[in-house]
């Protein structure tokens, strides 16, 4: 289990973590999440359009002030390598009526994103860690949150 947790952070480059961002609207926020993926060479530029397209199909808001924008299945060929980005908007972004503080951009080929989403969702299911993510001000905090091993939280 520890290896899977480690994988989540190895997909997240430090420069893909931006904790003091501002976005004019949801699409701008998605573009920023996508740009961070582009900057590390994980995607082709067209993938950002696929992310916007996906958002218009079904919202990627998952609660706890977090959204997980990612491309449509058709856009997977525009992914060079699996990667994540974490963009924090301290002022919040109106995400189709919900407030989003953290956008986690996801680029995955094939079925890679299932495991990623599963791990991320498990982190966010813990309200304390979700809140910590919303308030994170350093990359180390973000990494710490994504690597905490919590196999024993079934007793909630």
């Amino acid at each position, binding site marked *: 289990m520890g290896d899977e947790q480690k994988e989540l952070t190895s997909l997240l480059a430090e420069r893909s973590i931006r904790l003091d961002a501002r976005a004019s609207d949801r699409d701008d926020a998605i573009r920023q999440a996508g740009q961070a993926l582009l900057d590390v060479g994980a995607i082709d530029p067209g993938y950002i359009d696929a992310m916007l397209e996906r958002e218009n199909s079904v919202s990627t808001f*998952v609660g706890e002030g977090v959204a997980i924008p990612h491309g449509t299945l058709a856009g997977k060929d525009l992914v060079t390598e699996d990667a994540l980005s974490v963009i924090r908007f301290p002022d919040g972004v109106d995400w189709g009526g919900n407030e989003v503080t953290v956008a986690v951009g996801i680029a995955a080929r094939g079925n890679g994103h299932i495991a990623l989403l599963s791990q*991320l*969702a498990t982190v966010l*299911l813990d309200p304390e860690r979700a809140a910590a993510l919303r308030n994170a001000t350093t990359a180390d905090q973000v990494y710490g949150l994504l690597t905490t091993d919590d196999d024993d939280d079934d007793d909630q």
Partner: protein
Amino acid sequence: MSERTVKVASSVGLHARPASLFSQAAAATGVPVTLTSAAGKSVNAASILGVLSLGVGGGEEVTLSSDAENADAALDQLVALLSRDLDQE
């Protein structure tokens, strides 16, 4: 306790889009439903984070259950939903 077991038809499993549609539908029934993966992990079916955290793959069997009265119609509806490939894009 009403229970149904269904094979997830969505070709890539209960990932973001199918999970979203499924959890929204579960919430809309107004009936508390528990989703249990083949691995035995249970979550609230109406919680998208819960559903995502199970990481259910295509073709995997899941169990839907509820202690509520009148749960049968809701469970049947959700089974029908999971039996379709929600991955249409």
